[in-house]
C-alpha cells in the first residue's frame, strides 16, 4: 500500500505541523518504509485476543474527592510566552 504525499499533508494538518516541500518528500518516503516494516504485524494471528491497554493489568484507581490547592500560581504562569492579567494571551480567536 503506497502512501501519497497528499496523505502526509493531511496527517501533518491533523498534527498541526507545517512541512516544507522537502520534508513532505522525506516523510512520505520514510512512512512508506516504516509502515511496510510495521505491516509484518498482520502475520500474527490475533483472533480472540484482547487489546492490551496499559502495560499492567490493573483497574479501578481512583482519587478521593478532596481539595488540595496548588500553592504557587506564579510558577505555573512563569513559562508563558505571552500573558495578560494572569491569563495566557493568544491572537484573537474568531468564533
Amino acid at each position, binding site marked *: 500500500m503506497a502512501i501519497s504525499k497528499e496523505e502526509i499533508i493531511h496527517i501533518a494538518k491533523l498534527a498541526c505541523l507545517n512541512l516544507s516541500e522537502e520534508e513532505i518528500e522525506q516523510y512520505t518516503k520514510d512512512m512508506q518504509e516504516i509502515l511496510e516494516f510495521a505491516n509484518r504485524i498482520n502475520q500474527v494471528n490475533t483472533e480472540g485476543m484482547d487489546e492490551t491497554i496499559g502495560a499492567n493489568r490493573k483497574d479501578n484507581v481512583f482519587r478521593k474527592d478532596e481539595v488540595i490547592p496548588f500553592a504557587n500560581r506564579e510558577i505555573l504562569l512563569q513559562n508563558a510566552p505571552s500573558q*495578560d492579567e494572569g491569563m495566557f494571551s493568544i491572537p484573537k480567536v474568531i468564533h
Partner: protein
Amino acid sequence: MAKEDYEIVIGLEVHCELSTKTKIFCSCPTDFGGEPNTHCCPVCMAMPGALPVLNEKVVEYAVKAGLATNCNIEKNSKNDRKNYFYPDNPKSYQISQFDKPLCYDGFVTIETDKGEKQIRIERIHIEEDAGKLNHDDYGRGSFVDLNRAGVPLIEVVSKPDMRSAIEAESYMRKLKSIFEYIGISDCKMQEGSLRADVNVSVRKKGTEQLGTRTEMKNMNSFRSIVRAINYEAERQIEIIENGGDITQETLRWDDISGKTFSMRDKEDAEDYRYFPEPDLVSIKLSDTYIENIKGNLPELPESRKKRYLEEFGLTEKAANFVTSSKYYSNLFEEAIEICHNPKTVGNLLMSDIARILNEREEEPEDLKFTGKELGELVILIDQGTISSAIAKKVLEELFNEVKMPSDIIQEKGWIQISDEGAIKEIVVKILEANPQSIIDFKAGKSKALGFLVGQAMKETKGKANPQMLNKLFLEELKK
C-alpha cells in the same frame, strides 16, 4: 407544501457539570468564579509530565445519573483520548469516553399535550470540561483561563426522539430536575453548568428517513433552545421548499438577532483519533457497587408525584407542577409538615410563587425562603388572620427579604380585622355614606352588595375579613 406538512426531529447532547468538590483528574477546586488560572495545577494546566488520576465521586455521580434515567451501567468501562487542538483544551486532547460509556440505553418520561412520552437516552459518559477563552473588545486578542479546565462533566446523548421545541424543553427540564433531585449537579444554566448541543432536522410527515441535521452548540437557556429550534426548523423547511439541500454543519445561535449562523468552516476535517487513555486504568464496576448506589438514590419525581396524588389528594396538574423541581417539592414537603394543608401549599406554589418567579425571571433554585415561612403563611390564611389578597403581598415580601410572615404582617399592619364589633362599625359607616346602594339592593340589584364590600375593603386597606363583611352587610341590609 406547508410548514404543517413537516415534522421536526430533535436530539440533544446535554452537558452537565457535576458538583464534586474537585476536578475530574486533579485535586483543584471546582468552585465557580475566582481569579483567572487560580484553580489550576500542573495536571489541569497540562504541564509536561503531569498525570491524571480519576476522581471516584465522578464515577459515582455518573452512575447515579444513569440509574435515575433508567440506563444500563457498563461494568467494564474506560477512558479515551479525543485529540484536537484548541486553546481551551490545554493537553490538545480531552479525556472522555468513546466506545464504553459508563451508562447506556436509558430513557426519561416527559409530559406532552398528548400525554406521557418516553425520550430514549443513548448514552451517558464522563469527560472533562474545557477552559474559558476571554475576548476583549479592543482587538488585542484572546485570553485563556483554565479554571474550568478539568471540571467533571457528564454528557447525556438522547436519541432523536423529540418532535417539537416544547418537547425538547420538557426533556431538558426533566433531566435538570432529575439531576437536582439526585444531587449530582447544581444545574445552573446561567453559569454554564447545564448546557446542550441541539441537533435539528426536518422531514415530511409520514417519512421514516431522518433529514440532514444541523447542530447548535452550547445552548444555555431554555428560552434560546426553544427559539433556536423553531428558527432552525423554519429555515430548513424554507430551504427544502425552495428545492435546496441542508448542509450538515455546526451553527451558532445568536440570541440577539434570533438567527443561526454558519460557523467559520473548520480548516481541517475533524478526525479526533480516539484511543484508550494510557495514563488511566479501566473502570470495573461490581454489582454490589451498582446496587449500593441504586439503594441510596433519593426519591425521584415519579415516585413523589404518586405519593402526592395518593396521600395528599393533589390534582394531577398540581402534583406534576410541584414535582417538576426538587426545590418546589422540598419546599412543599417542608411547608406541609408545618401547616398540614397540602392543597393550599400546592396552589400557592403553582399560582403565586410560580408567577412571581416568572416575573423576576428566576428559577425555583433561586427561592430564598423555606417551608418554615411558607407553612406559617398558610396557617395564617387558614386561621383567618390574613386574607388571600394579603397572602400574595406577604409572598412578594418574602421574595425580597426572608422573614416570618407573622412578623411581616405585624410590621406592615396587615392583620385581618375579624372583630365583629369593629367590622360592624365600618359596615354602618359605609351604609350611611351610600344610601343609593341600599335602595339598589332592595330593588334586587345584588351587585350593590359587592360594591359595598369593596368600599369597606378600601376603607380597611384589605384587612377586613371578607366573609364577615358579607355577613354583616346582609344582616344590616335586611333590617
